[in-house]
């Protein structure tokens, strides 16, 4: 990473916090709680005032612990007996060191953390577009989740088993077959990796939610960015944890490609803010990514990162 870039960002964030105290109006710890237990958070409403937590480091489990602590602890999200669904990105057949899939240690650590917080079950799901067996194996996530005591499976081929028709209510995406696991979960945590994407420039949190829709081809046939934003408006994760430890900066999403290390974990309840912050790590303006801009317009969250508190964990 660019230390300079980070400092600039931190300075901006600090300035924002000072100049715009309105953003801080809601106590930091209440924002996440507002979403808990809500099967379908109100997407059309005002952007959730909140904060982003950035944990820097190299050790995923330790970064996660710091990040969650800064958000008020995992207990703010996961109540005893809760069914937790995690959606990492292991859509491509790549090894962890190839930095095109969510860090397996991070996923394993979150499974362990949720179970320790009393979660009844922790399901880790993905809908890879290449062979599920290879993705499960190569990403290291299957082994990590199994070792942590969670369930892991892919949604491929399980149209009836894993998907349910719902009204999305978007202009382009009026209806879709959506992941039952996520619809029925008490807590849904999105765990994308920050990396290059050939079509949308970056794949981030909201792009990762595409893997919860049965017919992703529809997005490509109609309006990719708009569909991503509308699907995100339909179902906001309770928490997004962006793996920005290392990621490919070209040849994405498939990789392999040149790898950049940011050494950051970005946590937030506002999916748009997390993605917007991720875009700045890439040196892009959030509005450069159409789906971020459209999602902000739809009121899914705020993309003006300089107005969001970025808290260093």
């Amino acid at each position, binding site marked *: 990473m660019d230390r300079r870039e980070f400092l600039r960002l931190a300075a901006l964030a600090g300035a924002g916090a000072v100049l715009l105290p309105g953003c801080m109006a809601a106590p930091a710890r209440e924002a996440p709680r507002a979403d808990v237990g809500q099967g379908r958070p109100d997407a059309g409403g005002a952007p959730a005032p909140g904060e982003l937590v950035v944990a820097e480091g190299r050790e995923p489990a330790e970064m996660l612990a710091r990040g969650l602590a800064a958000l008020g602890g995992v207990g703010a999200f996961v109540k005893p007996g809760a069914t937790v669904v995690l959606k990492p990105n292991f859509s491509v*057949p790549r090894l962890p060191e190839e930095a095109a899939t969510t860090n397996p240690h991070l996923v394993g650590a979150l499974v362990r953390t949720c179970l320790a917080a009393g979660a009844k079950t922790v399901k880790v799901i993905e809908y890879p577009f290449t062979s599920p067996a290879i993705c499960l194996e190569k990403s290291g996530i299957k082994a990590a989740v199994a070792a942590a005591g969670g369930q892991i499976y892919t949604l491929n081929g399980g149209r009836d088993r894993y998907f349910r028709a719902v009204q999305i209510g978007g202009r382009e995406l009026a209806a879709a077959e959506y992941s039952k696991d996520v619809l029925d979960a008490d807590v849904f945590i999105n765990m994308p990796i920050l990396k290059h994407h*050939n079509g949308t420039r970056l794949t981030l949190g909201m792009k990762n939610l595409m893997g919860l829709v049965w017919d992703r081809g529809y997005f490509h046939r109609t309006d990719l960015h708009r569909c991503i934003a509308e699907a995100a408006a339909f179902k906001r994760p309770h928490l997004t944890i962006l793996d920005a430890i290392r990621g490919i900066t070209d040849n994405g999403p*498939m990789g392999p490609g040149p790898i950049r290390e940011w050494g950051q974990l970005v946590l937030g309840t506002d999916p748009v803010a997390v993605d917007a912050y991720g875009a700045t790590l890439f040196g892009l303006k959030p509005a450069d990514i159409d789906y971020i801009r459209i999602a902000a317009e739809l009121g899914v969250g705020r993309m003006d990162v300089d107005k969001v508190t970025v808290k260093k964990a």
Partner: protein
Amino acid sequence: MDRRDFSKSAMKLPALRYGRTLLPASLLAAVVALVARHQYPLPADSGLLLWFSRLDPLLLVSYLRWEGAFPAWGWLPLATVLLTLAAGRVFCGWLCPLGGLLALMHDGRAFVRRRLGRGPGAGRPAWTDRLRPYRYHWLLALAALMLLGSGWVLYLSPFHLLTSELARLWRGEVPWMAAALLAAGLIAFPRFWCVYLCPTGLTLSLLARWRRWAVKAPAGCRRCGLCARACPTGAAAAGPAWAGADCLVCGRCAGVCPAGDFALAAGDDGHTAAAGGTFTRREVIRAGVALAVATAAAPALGRPAGAQPLRPPGALEEDEFLARCSRCGRCIKACPSKCLKAMPLSSGAASFLTPVIVPREARCELTQDCQRVCPTGAIASLPVEKAVIGLAEIDRARCIGWAEGKLCLLCQEQCPQHAIDSDKQDRPSVVNEKCVGCGACENGCPLEQPAIVVRPQPKRRRP
């Protein structure tokens, strides 16, 4: 006369008595287990099946015919040949896994008959003996077919037939060939396949005519015929003193003999003499007919019919591929994405059961597992960059990027070889030099009828 009886009572040892069933039956179980393990991630022991299959001299013949070079593992089938020249069809009686299946059937049948009080063994129906003169003509026809370029001959050899049927079972299909083989065993006798049809077995029978040591009846033989009834192949009936060339050296004859000890003995006073024989005019004519039939059938069984299919990466050119692929089904079983399918009979007799990639159902993940498990060399070991399964072709009139001006680029997103470029307007184009034809693009294309399709190419590898 040099006669060394080196196993007088050995043939009645319990180890041999049970081993002759247990060993081949466990090898059968081992093959079933190894085929089961042909899946992602491919375990290192998958190589065991490869090596086990190499015991078959027919595979060496195929390699010599098509590679023109002696493979590094050539000593293994040669060891089988030497073993046969020494003591006959020991391979068939003790090591062949398909033989293990039929040995179980033989012993099961004998057991039931004993329980019903119908005497030891069941013998063979007389009509099967009348087929005997034709079996080497069958072998001759198969040899011609094999050398002319049909992989079907290798299919009939035990390792390939067995794994082909096991792979069919795993695909949820009916193993009709194994069913036919077992049905023939019920109607005729269990080892009918081994005596009359198996190309490997017949080749070894031919070699066994010149074997050094053969099973010999005891001096006090009373011609009671019990050994002939117990013999799984009818080799004991070829006697009186020496077992015929089909002898599996299993010792079941010794187990029932009331007169004394059978022995594995060397000698030229019987069994080798029987090998000589002269060719009658009738035999020559039959041989000519067999050759003519094989030559006539060769095109249908070895030449591609219609359009070239998409073969696994590393597959040889179509003619040679069809000549060498034994339809053993292991590549299809091992394929991690299940992009490999067995071609249906409707695709022609030559292509039936050979592996084909259907990208719309699944893409080739380029793991090269098919190359690793192929026993025949039909799918050669080849780096992915050198392979040309086919080349992707974009139909610009229908492609979303070209025809509708929208951002799609799903083909580019999913291409593992980065063989798709896009321009400023997000329109894709294929970089032929990088495309290996894995079908990820065709698989991913969001249109009902894909606008990017992998086309087969006449050359399947890059220089």
